[in-house]
């Protein structure tokens, strides 16, 4: 494999990463938008349906994203190895510092944090106003 091939693959990996993030943002905004703008309280079955659909979308996305980051990280390491001895020492140093590991961990943390928040809102959001309505 030439350096050019490795770079092409890295481009492809980055495009996939962008795609997965785009997909994730679309899903999250769609779910949040639906929760916020709904007129009626959610029924139990609707909550279950939303939960399952969201978990499937988020989990699939996270698996793809995690894999793409892992692939990009592997390519980065390989590129460093392939260019060992290059006169571009500062360039290599920057490449060396630009690890995808932290981004991969951030992706996991964001998926878990946002997912937990959405599911909390789906299951427990609006309970206060429902009780208030019932008491009236």
């Amino acid at each position, binding site marked *: 494999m030439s350096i050019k091939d490795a770079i092409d693959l890295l481009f492809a990996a980055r495009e996939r990463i962008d795609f997965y993030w785009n997909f994730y943002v*679309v899903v999250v905004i769609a779910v949040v938008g639906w929760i916020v*703008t709904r007129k009626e309280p959610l029924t139990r079955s609707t909550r279950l349906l939303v939960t399952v659909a969201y978990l499937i979308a988020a989990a699939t996305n996270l698996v793809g994203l995690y894999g793409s980051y892992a692939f990009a990280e592997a390519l980065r390491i390989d590129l460093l190895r392939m260019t060992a001895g290059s006169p571009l020492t500062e360039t290599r140093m920057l490449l060396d510092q630009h690890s995808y590991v932290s981004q991969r961990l951030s992706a996991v943390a964001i998926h878990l944090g946002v997912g937990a928040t959405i599911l909390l809102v789906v299951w427990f959001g609006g309970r206060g106003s429902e009780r208030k309505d019932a008491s009236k």
Partner: protein
Amino acid sequence: MSLNNVAALAAVLAVLAGVSTPVSAQHEGHKMPGVSDTTKKKPATMPKAKASKASAKKKTTAKPRSASKASATKASATKRPAAKKAVSATKKLPPTRPATTGTPSHSDSLHKAMSKPSADTMKMDAPHTGQASDPAGKMPMSQSAGASMPGASRVHSGHDMMSGPLSLTMDRMGSGTTWIPDAVTVPSRHRMFGAWEVMAHGFVFAQYDHQSGPRGDDQLGSLNWAMLMASRELAGGHLQARTMLSLDPGTVTSRGYPLLLQTGEAFDGEPLHDRQHPHDFFMEVGLLYQREFNPRIAWSLYAAPSGEPALGPVAFMHRPSAMDNPAAPLSHHWQDATHVSFGVVTAGIFTRRWQLEGSVFNGREPDEHRWNFDPIKLDSYSGRVTANPTNNWSLTAGYGYLKSPEELHPDEPMHRITASALHGRVIGADGQAASALVWGVNRHGGDTKPTHTFLVENETILDKRNTIFGRAELVQKTGEDLALDESSMPVLNGSVDVSEMRFNVGAMQLGYIRELARRRWATIGLGAGATLNFVPKSLEDVYGSRNPVGTFFFLRVRPFHLNPGVMQRMNGMGTSRRVHVD
């Protein structure tokens, strides 16, 4: 290691470690495939002799004023830290092969390494002028940012096209005659048509707006505006014709869009409340003429049947700190509401660092008939001082007397004082952070107590994909502003005139935009924003809660953002650039 490998590694760096690569070279608009495709047909690196010839030709055809422009170029080198950084960054790279041979250079190899299909490609089909890509003019061509990276090597000096009197760039202009910090930009595109330089920019939001509570509402609509500016040299000065149009009256109706606690203007003879009025179709139609007294001081004259007087900060949709935020500030009618005035004449003097202006204008707010010009009058006046002490700051303060601003209270004049501080800085290769702090106060004729407003907002374009924005406001509104009456507050039993009561209301907003796609010269973003409003206990029943919530979900289309260094280079290519879609 072969040259190909060196170039390839640089390409990896360009993609992966954006913060440290030259701004001009890293931006997609410059680096991407269209460039390399074109390069195969027309080598990016021109033989030096040819470059010198082109440069010499340019010098002979230059107007006498080019001397001051040259000095301005030098000044600009100190003014644009991003550009300077770009040059210094490339100094670290090993020297490239001299561009005199015409044989494949690092840049060519880099082009090949980076050849990938992309929609936003650009072709530069005219020769470059050599030293222009080095803003400081101190580096040999082969070591300048332009020569060391593809695309950028064919960049002209931005000052050839962009600069007006005192070599101030068009990009400093906000709304009307306001200034924004030099370090940040409002996305726009420039192109030359003969002697005219045309700048276009605009935003289109397609949004779902949901405001909670008894005074809330829902709406699916579109907020939008487009602006066209055409400039040219005229009679020793600089003439700029402008128009700014909006289809808001059709896309969010003449009643505007729901926005809790928002007030101002009228519809069907009633004051609008908890809704933001739409902009008029003719937001701006005007002419600006600027001319130098001497190389340090210039004067300006702005006349507009529809335009913005010298009052208040940059209008919110032109502020880099709010441009991607679809919601208007609650303090709009205390700060920048005169940005659409039917009849404005403004005169000013300015240097590169400060500006002093005075206006006579029509103080009446636009009426509810949004598609036409309102009657043009010059019955109000204002004055404003602006200072851009550094590239990162723009400070303003001003006063205005509005003779009869409100249609429903035509006998009530108003005094308005505003002050603002706008800050901006570049983030990495593709981002910027812009903030604004604005204070505005209105005092109606006959009132002894003015009402105050404070606004803090920020928009940070983190990179090509992610933008966050936010705003916090504290606003004093009267019962009349909020259209409250005795029935709204029965607990008072009519003991107090509710319309005269003052309420401190507030709002905190956060939003995020993800750029989903970039096409030709525009970027399409999907975003959401939520506002938590704060009302006093006395208004809890009116709004259904002490903290009613407003949300926006939207798609937004606008020109993609370029940092000033990149923008300067791109605009410098105005005469030779042809943007196209492959």
